[in-house]
């Protein structure tokens, strides 16, 4: 331990051990993805590429496409719905209003996927809240099918990703210097023009961070597509669980994880790249 860096070894070692533990777990997934499945046995067979060639089968390719589509829909919807809320949160004048907004926004973040998904089942189900209201008002005669549809899954997922989106947008918006907006307004720009030409472009880092995180979180979601999708809307997470715990085909489940991770990295890097282009075009 050098005298100029007191505690260095003591403080760094545990974290390095954690990093190695995590890397070991990820290496285990990677290793299993190249192993053969031995039916009836939990131990994998020899090394093979068969798991990855199997991924190209239409059945699995379809789930990949569906997953990306659901992630994309969820991220964009969350952005559009979350933006006004983030704006209100940053601009709220009274401390009480701000606190209330903050508590409403942040609480769902810590509720966990199961409680939130269950709540949405009660809202969206055929005997659920929305259908009961619509039936009682005489707007519909038959319950509308929300459960087991992509629409239902996306609505619940938007609710899941909303807190983190709002927090990230609010962080970016709070760092936008208001003098720019005042300057634009004083030069005669209307509120909508100020928003579109000044506020929105300056909050782009938050938009990119929010969309990226929402995409990754949706990709990670399991309980929501499992319970609300009910087997009719399948995401990669559901397939991984099914393969692991229904057929004990851990090698194939691992290859799905690896492919899923590769896909997320590709999509997110593309998003980053596109946003950088966007920022490069911006100042004109």
């Amino acid at each position, binding site marked *: 331990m050098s005298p100029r*860096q007191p505690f260095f070894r003591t*403080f760094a070692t545990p974290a390095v051990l954690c990093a190695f*533990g995590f890397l070991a*777990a990820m290496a*285990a*997934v990677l290793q299993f993805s190249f192993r053969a499945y031995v039916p009836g046995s939990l131990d994998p067979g020899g090394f093979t590429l068969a798991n990855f060639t199997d991924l190209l089968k239409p059945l699995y390719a379809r789930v990949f496409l569906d997953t990306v589509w659901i992630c994309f829909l969820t991220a964009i919807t969350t952005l559009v719905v979350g933006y*006004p809320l983030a704006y209100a949160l940053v601009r709220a004048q009274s401390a009480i209003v701000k606190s209330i907004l903050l508590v409403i926004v942040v609480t769902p973040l810590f509720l966990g996927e199961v409680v939130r998904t269950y*709540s949405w089942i009660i809202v969206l189900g055929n005997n659920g809240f929305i259908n009961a209201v619509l039936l009682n008002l005489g707007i519909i005669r038959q319950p509308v099918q929300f459960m087991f549809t992509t629409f239902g899954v996306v609505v619940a997922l938007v609710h899941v990703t909303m807190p983190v989106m709002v*927090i990230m947008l609010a962080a970016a*918006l709070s760092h936008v210097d208001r003098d720019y907006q005042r300057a634009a307004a004083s030069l005669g720009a209307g509120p909508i023009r100020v928003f579109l030409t000044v506020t929105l472009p300056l909050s782009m880092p938050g938009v990119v961070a929010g969309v990226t995180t929402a995409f990754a979180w949706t990709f990670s979601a399991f309980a929501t597509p499992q319970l609300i999708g009910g087997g009719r809307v399948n995401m990669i997470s559901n397939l991984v669980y099914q393969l692991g715990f229904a057929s004990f085909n851990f090698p194939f489940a691992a290859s799905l994880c690896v492919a899923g991770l590769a896909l997320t990295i590709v999509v997110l890097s593309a998003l980053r790249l596109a946003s950088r282009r966007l920022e490069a075009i911006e100042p004109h």
Partner: protein
Amino acid sequence: MPRSTYQRLLGLVGKLVVLLILGFLVLPAAVVTIAAFNDKAILSFPPQAWSMRWFAKAFAYQDFREGFHNGLIVTAWSSTIALVVGAMFAFVLDRYRFRFKRLIEAVLLSPLVIPHFTVGLGFLILAAQIGWSRSYTVVIACHIVLVLPFVLRSVYVSLRNLDQSYERAAASLGASPLRVMVTITLPLLLPGLVSGWLFAAMLSFNEFTASLFVTAQRTQTLPVAMYNYVREFADPSMAALSVIYIVGTAALIVFANAYLGLSKVLNIEHGR
């Protein structure tokens, strides 16, 4: 001026939109609360009679009790270990330059974007290979890795905002590094440490997907027990438990906001 009427109208529309969005956020919690106090076993709106019996049933259900107990064990260990490990590493990150600094940081933050089912599967396979299968150890290890990024960030932000001149003053007056750490740095960091630990504990207690992979019947945490219940039964006991969850979580958030300043922790304090 026509201008100001237009602006007022725009402001009104904006407020209405925000209220609608807030309604969307609160709707599931409100509906689940109504369902929890509904006397009927089958969901029906509006409820004909009210009762507390689903709360009694939720409290009496063995899997919920054990899940709560197991969850407390896992959460206590994982959030505390993550706090110690994360706080120490945040200190090192803030103060020192060393080899592989960015790499280690990136590895420790990566569970934020790696799907939890992948992390869970990884720990499950790893545990099977080293013979820890289905023990508390693997559940706790998995949770530590998952909550560590949040602790790391929370403590790191506090360290950035900490005025190091106090430490230098103490050191120049002859205090040993250990004494400076215990009497100056740690007390100044306390709010960051408390909020980091609180967030870690809440996230660990609610962690579901990875837990589903690494827990067994004996070690299953409350969210896993709830998931299994939702799959098997349809009565509102789960709604009752959800209400307790929502109230408890909201109370903790209100507490965190009052004593730790949530907007500061989340970095959304606005400049001017």
